[in-house]
């Protein structure tokens, strides 16, 4: 029991931290820095605890306490680890970001923590309504974070779009949950799995329609084609650290729960594989086509995020419900998270006052002025593009391997082609940074070093994860 308690510790920590931060916000004395430190501290401690949990590999389906609603496995643990890491580095880069943009209040950090707690829940819940609740805990916090800059028109627009479409998708999710409940007499993944295993799947329209709606909701949150349209505008409107946070933590949580749901039963999974197949192909190519046309960095990264969703869908197609480990998905998520977080950390201190540097051309000649930042960004881009010896390459390699191993050769080939296509826009930034003379002085307005430090830690992580893929 105590052990199980330890396994829940990170979640508890985060929740408690979130609440206490919110309370602290009530006091005038608590400065933003302190809040930031607090936030970082909470994430850091939670991260370490989660790390120790990961090392003690022990599975705890809380039959008695939570009645099978929460399950902790290696999969959920590592996913949680990634999320906590994302939170930590987000706080770190936000630290510096708010030196150049002043719309921050203490609640910001508590909201980050709240959303993290939603994400952590998402990774381990095994029951549809809990999923809905967790989803909403996460989403509501993130809605606010997106629109945090009240003065900013684009932020307001972004939150509007995100909120409307998100709620729309949420409605689908509830409907789906209802139908599944109707079809399978339960909303718990395990019992749904048993039901499908016994009674079959396609002979039960309610179940089919329900799971269909649920999957649609997941695909929306994961920004898969054709539910991707919001992601670009929202990422563009949100502030850099939050964009990074959404792109990484949120995606991790969603894919964790998505995988958990799919592997509830093999027939359930296999009956959706064909759809996921097409989804992933379209997602990859549409993502590339959107990305190549973009001029601002954030929108490009958002579009490339869509492409990576496509890769993750490949991985989802390749998992099997029996002996499901999800290592490939997690590894790819980790690799992608490191890269994306790194770039947004860099953006949040290179972006300048009010994020004035946004387009590709704004970063011309960066290498001449700030070689190390340019090098770091290059490393992240290469990792996303999947060039060895970075983590991104390993992730891609494992995904392709698993796809071919699962007999999805076509999918693997499409993945390869799309990563060829993605070269153009990744290299475009590298070329701008290195092969042009500097037009901008990239002066450092803040004396704050957190985001740079975070960037370089992440840059190191790219290689560490790439060269020592331990979790595989």
């Amino acid at each position: 029991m105590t052990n199980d308690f330890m396994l829940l510790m990170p979640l508890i920590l985060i929740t408690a931290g979130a609440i206490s931060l919110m309370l602290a916000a009530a006091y005038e004395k608590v400065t933003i820095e302190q809040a930031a430190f607090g936030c970082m501290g909470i994430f850091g401690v939670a991260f370490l605890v989660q790390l120790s949990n990961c090392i003690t590999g022990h599975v705890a389906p809380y039959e008695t306490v939570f009645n099978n609603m929460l399950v902790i496995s290696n999969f959920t643990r590592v996913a949680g680890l990634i999320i906590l890491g994302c939170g930590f580095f987000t706080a770190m880069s936000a630290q510096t970001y708010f030196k150049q943009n002043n719309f921050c209040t203490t609640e910001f950090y508590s909201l980050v923590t709240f959303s993290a707690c939603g994400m952590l829940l998402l990774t381990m819940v095994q029951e549809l309504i809990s999923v809905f609740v967790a989803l909403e805990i996460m989403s509501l916090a993130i809605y606010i974070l997106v629109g945090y800059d009240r003065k900013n028109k684009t932020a307001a627009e972004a939150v509007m779009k995100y909120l409307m479409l998100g709620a729309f998708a949420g409605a689908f999710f509830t409907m789906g949950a209802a139908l599944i409940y109707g079809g399978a007499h339960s909303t718990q993944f395990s019992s749904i799995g048993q039901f499908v295993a016994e009674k079959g799947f396609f002979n039960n329209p309610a179940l089919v329609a329900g799971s269909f709606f649920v999957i649609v909701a997941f695909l929306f949150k994961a920004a898969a084609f054709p539910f991707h349209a919001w992601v670009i505008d929202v990422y563009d409107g949100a502030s850099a650290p939050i964009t990074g946070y959404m792109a990484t933590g949120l995606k991790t949580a969603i894919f964790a729960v998505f995988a958990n749901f799919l592997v509830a039963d093999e027939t359930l999974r296999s009956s959706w594989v064909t759809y996921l197949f097409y989804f992933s192909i379209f997602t990859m190519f549409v993502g590339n086509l959107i990305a190549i046309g973009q001029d601002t960095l954030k929108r490009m990264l958002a579009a490339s995020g869509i492409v990576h969703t496509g890769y993750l869908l490949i991985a989802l197609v390749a998992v099997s419900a029996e002996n499901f480990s999800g290592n490939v998905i997690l590894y790819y998520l980790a690799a992608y998270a490191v890269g994306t977080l790194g770039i947004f950390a860099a953006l949040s201190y290179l972006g300048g006052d009010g994020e004035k540097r946004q387009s590709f051309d704004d970063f011309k000649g960066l290498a001449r002025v700030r070689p190390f930042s340019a090098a770091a960004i290059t490393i992240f881009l290469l990792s996303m593009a999947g060039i060895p010896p970075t983590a991104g390459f390993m992730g891609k390699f494992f995904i392709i391997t698993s796809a071919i191993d699962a007999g999805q050769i076509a999918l693997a080939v499409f993945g390869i082609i799309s990563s060829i296509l993605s070269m153009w826009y990744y290299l475009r930034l590298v070329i701008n940074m290195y092969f042009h003379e500097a037009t901008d002085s990239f002066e450092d307005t803040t004396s704050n070093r957190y985001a740079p430090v975070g960037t370089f830690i992440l840059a190191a992580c790219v290689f560490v994860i790439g060269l020592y893929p331990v979790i595989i």
Partner: protein
Amino acid sequence: MFEHVLSVMIFLPIVAGLILLLTPAGKGLARLTGLVISFASLILGLDIFFKFKEQAALQFVENVPWIPSFGINYHLGLDGISLFVLLAGAVLMPMVYLLFTTKEKGYYANLLIVQGAMAGALCAADMVLFYIFWEIMLLPIFFMLGMYGGEKRIKATLKITIYTIAGSLLMLASIVYVGVTYHSQFGEWNFAISQMSQLQLAGPVAVLAFFGFMIAFAIKIPLFPFHTWLPDAYTEAPTATTFVLSAIMAKIGVYAVIRFVVPVFDGEFARFALLLAYSGVIGMMYCGITAIAQKDVKRMLAFSSASHMGVIALGVFCLNVQALTGSIYQIVAHATSTGVLFLFVGILEDKMKTRKIEDLGGIAYKAPVFAFFFAIAMLASVGLPGTSGFIGEFLIILGAIKFNVLIGVLAGTTLIIGVCYMLWMFQRVFYETTNERTEGFTDLSITEGLTFLPVIVLIVIMGLYPQPFLSKIEPAAQQHIAALTKADTIQIAQSTHAQPAEGHTVEKKN
């Protein structure tokens, strides 16, 4: 120490290069480091050469598990085929630092990194490891070309990068496919090249995978019609980069074909050999003919290099030991001839500030040593007997005749085509009368002269006494051919020659 010599050869330069990049070292220090490191690896290379035993098996093997769950190992090894490409790199790289003394830090650092990466690609005995080095190899080229290249450099950079990466990603898919097939056939994950020859690959997917490999290598070599990145890249790149590209990196493409495609896809290889051989020989003629029309010395050399690579590749596709040995030998010969020619042109460009052929002339009178060395390298590249170029070309043509008479004859035309553009260029650059621009041309300095001397001597030695090299190459070549002839699909029906006269007692009187 010595059992890790390959690791040292790989990581010494890479680490040095990275340190240079990360520290605020000056140009001079950077060059010095490069010089020292490259000489160190030269010494190591020579050591390897003399310790190398004349047998087919991998030597100096290092094998450390890396990703056990996928059977990926840090597995290095050297055989007669990779040995000489490695040596070519080790021997030639120091020249760059000796000759080009005034470049920026990044220039030397990138050179170091690319040297290490190439060594890695050559020593890797694990497909994934090979792929990793293969990709790393490209990055320094990307940066050097983009940062220190000519005015049209960015276009060239994008072209070569995306072209090569596209190819290598296809190769990645093929590698994974092979590994997965191994997993399904033998029930364990393994990416070691040596194991892959046991695979039974068949069916359309195998053919696809074969072409996945072949296209990647064809782009790197480059084989016709995948050569279109080459002229731009070679012309725009700074001299050292062009040198590295032509002298060593292109060779790694050929090496990879021998190393990966031949053992793994023996069936497909034998089936498509004719097609590939045609692409090689057509590329040779096409690029050779194009070369004569070039106005720019470097561009002309670029095409001539592509033309020679066509012949070298052809040697690999001919499926007999003479041709294969010949092309491995020619790899080194070409590195020492055409590679060195690029260096000469680099010097020429630095001194004359132009590469236009019509702006030059009469340099032979101004710079006899320069002209003499250039001439020797040129003669080697047109395959004059007594120079390194002859042995390889002769063996390749010999083998090509056995493989297919028509291809053999076409391959033979390289003797003529090569000499046409080379003499044409030599006449207008070195002979005829000097103009006001070339009046000021100064001969090689002592350092430069001494830098080139060893290679020039090597060219002659390799022409007159190639046996020590060949005897190291041959066992590996024999082994590969044996692996091929095991595949029963070989078609040499086209070749019309009579069988060798066995059984006839020959009284050797001497």
